[in-house]
């Protein structure tokens, strides 16, 4: 596992007492399959949380429940104090506050990079076009690809696409960012540029929940690491403790496998 070669300034990352996300006894089933079991999780504003675990452990499902891409079937989820119910109004409100990046970027291939970025601000936030484009350019600068604004996603490399995807989420001014394995589909050369952007985001004080296997990132940026298996949160600790002194046998096995490479 390559160490993250980026200077991280932990002092900038302040965690407040305000609760950003709270999950209480959340359960979810896919048909008969019990994917999430009694999940209890409290995320404070400014926290950076990394969720790891073997595939099929429910980590993606967990974060997808937060912006209702998946519907939980028992328990309660509060985002910014608003409870997620089947009321579309709440869902739309929460989705506006929660940004999400996907493993396969999911950029809109029929729109230019700039149009990808301004689409939601224009149609959801109803911001005037000039203003939205100006903001989009600011975020493109921040992810260091302003020169690609007029291109189509298909003309960009994977790392660039993922950075555009991050910028696209940021254009909605979210208070919480969810990352669903953002580097898993990337070549090693491109992982660094994406992590770089994510570190920058963490330094700006964004509340982040990342499903990732980038342990270097977890060690340097996260203030909490969560290990999931078979739909449960097995272990939850600060990164130093988590990596050097795992408590649960399942965690130890997982870490030994993932860190031995």
């Amino acid at each position, binding site marked *: 596992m390559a160490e993250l070669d980026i200077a991280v300034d932990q002092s900038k990352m302040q965690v407040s007492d305000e609760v950003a996300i709270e999950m209480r006894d959340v359960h979810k089933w896919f048909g008969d399959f019990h994917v999430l079991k009694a999940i209890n999780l409290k995320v404070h504003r400014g926290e950076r949380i990394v969720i790891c675990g073997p595939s099929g452990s429910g980590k993606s499902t967990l974060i997808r429940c937060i912006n209702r*891409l998946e519907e939980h079937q028992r328990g309660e989820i509060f985002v910014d104090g608003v409870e997620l119910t089947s009321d*579309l109004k709440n869902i739309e409100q929460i989705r506006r506050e*929660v940004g999400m990046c996907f493993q396969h970027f*999911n950029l809109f291939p029929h729109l230019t990079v700039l149009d990808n970025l301004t*689409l*939601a601000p224009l*149609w959801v936030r109803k911001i005037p076009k000039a203003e939205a484009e100006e903001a989009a350019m600011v975020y493109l600068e921040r992810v260091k690809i302003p020169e690609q604004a007029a291109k189509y996603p298909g003309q960009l490399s994977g790392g660039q696409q993922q950075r555009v995807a991050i910028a696209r989420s940021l254009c909605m001014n979210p208070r919480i960012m969810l990352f669903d394995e953002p580097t898993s589909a990337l070549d090693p050369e491109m992982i660094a540029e994406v992590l770089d952007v994510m570190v920058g985001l963490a330094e700006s004080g964004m509340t982040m929940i990342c499903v990732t296997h980038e342990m270097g990132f977890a060690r340097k940026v996260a203030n909490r690491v969560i290990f999931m298996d078979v739909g449960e949160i097995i272990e939850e600790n600060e990164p130093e403790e988590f990596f050097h002194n795992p408590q649960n046998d399942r965690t130890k096995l997982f870490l030994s496998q993932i860190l031995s490479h």
Partner: protein
Amino acid sequence: MTDTAHQSHQPGHHPDLPPPPSTVGLVGWLRSNLFGSPANIALSLVAIYMIWLLVPPILNWAFASAVFGGSDRYACDMGRSASRLGEAIRVINLQDLEAPETEKAIRESGQFLDQLVEALDAGSEAVPAGLANHLEGVDLTALGDDLSAAFESGNIDAIKANTQILQPIIDWGAAYDGACWTFIGVWFKQIMYGRYPDDQVWRINLAFLLLIATAGPLFVEKFRFKAPLSVFLLIIYPVIAYYLFSGFDRAAVVAWPLRLMGSTALALAVLASLPFLQRLRERSDLLSILLLVLVPIWGLSAGATWTSGILTGAAGWATTVGVALAVVPPILLFFGGRMPGWRDVIHDRYLPIIIGVAILVFIGFALPIMNWDEVAGPTPPMAMAVTPAALCMAAMASWGYDPRESKAPGALTVVLLPVYLVIAYIVFVGPPDLLNFGAFDWNWNARPAFQAISVTLPFVETPLWGGLFLTLVIAGVGIVASLPIGIVLALGRRSDMVIVRILCIAFIEVWRGVPLISVLFMASVMFPLFLPEGMNFDKLVRVLIGVTLFSSAYMAEVVRGGLQAIPKGQYEAAQALGLTFWKSMSLIILPQALKMVIPGIVNTFIGLFKDTTLVLIVGLFDLLGMVQLAATNPNWLGFSTEGYVFAAFGFWIFCFCMSRYSQHIERKLHTGH
């Protein structure tokens, strides 16, 4: 040991060299495309031989030997007459000049020469080019005289000499095979416009010119007002075109603006009532369920009363409005998935609203084609019944109208509805002194007010429409209407809502599983049987609806194919950004899905365009129908080939243009991924 000749460049510094000469240019093209391999050579030679075999005779038939001008079939019959003359001359018995064959030959030659002279007088266009070559230096009039003189005198040598002069022309006649475009020229107007009155044809031309003039700018890349122009083309142009095509009787002149007003007020009332329903739902689920159940029941019962013949004329129309009022909001709500609020209506839910308005406008269009003279008559209790209903809507509208979120449509509804109601009252029920319904004269034309405003285009009934014009009307309406309906059906078929899904699947499978001919037959023959006596839905409208629904079922499946090809991630990304269902559909999913299935969509369009010929079986004469009609005219028997070739060419031109345009669009939308 190294070979220095092949080491002239440092690694990584090899210059770009030109390709070998035999792989580029004409030679390269011929080599790679026509003569690449033995099989390729053989196929190329066979193809070239086939072309040589087929193309020259076709070109000869269509152009070189064809007759273009003239106003009757004589010019075209020149070949036949010549060969008949040859036949007559061949059987002359020179030993017995008194025999009947000789007399026939004299008669034939006289007739033929007369025809020839006549044709030459008419102009060079009326004579096939091949024949003109043989006529050089021949004095036809003198030849005719010489020939008959020779026969009379029994001078065999003179007869031989004169028939010798005729021989090349006779040979030409025996071999002649040329098209008679005179046939098309003479019937051209009918093939284009059907039986539309001659002095009114300008209306069709004007409408199509207007279409070209307004649609043209849409194809200009940098034109800035595409959106308003599209709205004009889709909403206002059909009204203008309909007015031009059909004209209006006096009643319709009054009824039409009313209907438009009614439709507008209706649409606005629906819009205004949505937030009201939303509020109701917030207060009580029971109430909203009641509303959602009762309103359609009221609408359906009103509709049933209408169709059962108790309500006709104005009352029937008013009831239809009621039905639309009752049916449209639940549909909108159903598709919207929840009760939308004002902002949603204006900003988020615009797609179902557009669909709703389109339905209303369609109703507004379809109704005037009903035969009002026959319908107007009985008492209008329902007009009075609808008035409170409309008032109710107005109340709902004003209740739903929130001044804090001031939105013009709400205010407009509140203002428009009473105005509309007052006018509707006067028109439907009559001025206050005519409250006695029994004495009221429902014949529109008899009312002095309508007499005064009778400056109208003469009414041209749809049975007179025909030819290419009718083809374009049917295909145009079908194409424009089937795409949105198909999209809605495709979305419905993929919906999570079970009832919507089942309804859509049933609709698609039924319409797709039935032959178009039987649809048309049902529409034209069976449907009227279910209507009350005296009520008459125009046949063309029924056919249009049949064709549209038929092709929209196909369209739905094509669009669904596109929707299925969109990765789930696109839906999720759109959702994660907070886009509503309709917005993610219209901004993200449909643009990609439709782009992907452009070939399929155009395929359906082309199929629809050609299927319009089937309307022949219900007695509408489209392009092909008119050609067939002309070809069976007793004076023009024998020219069906020309007719069919012309009709085929007409269809081909339009279909080919559609195909080329779709390819252009595909290239333009390609974003390189």
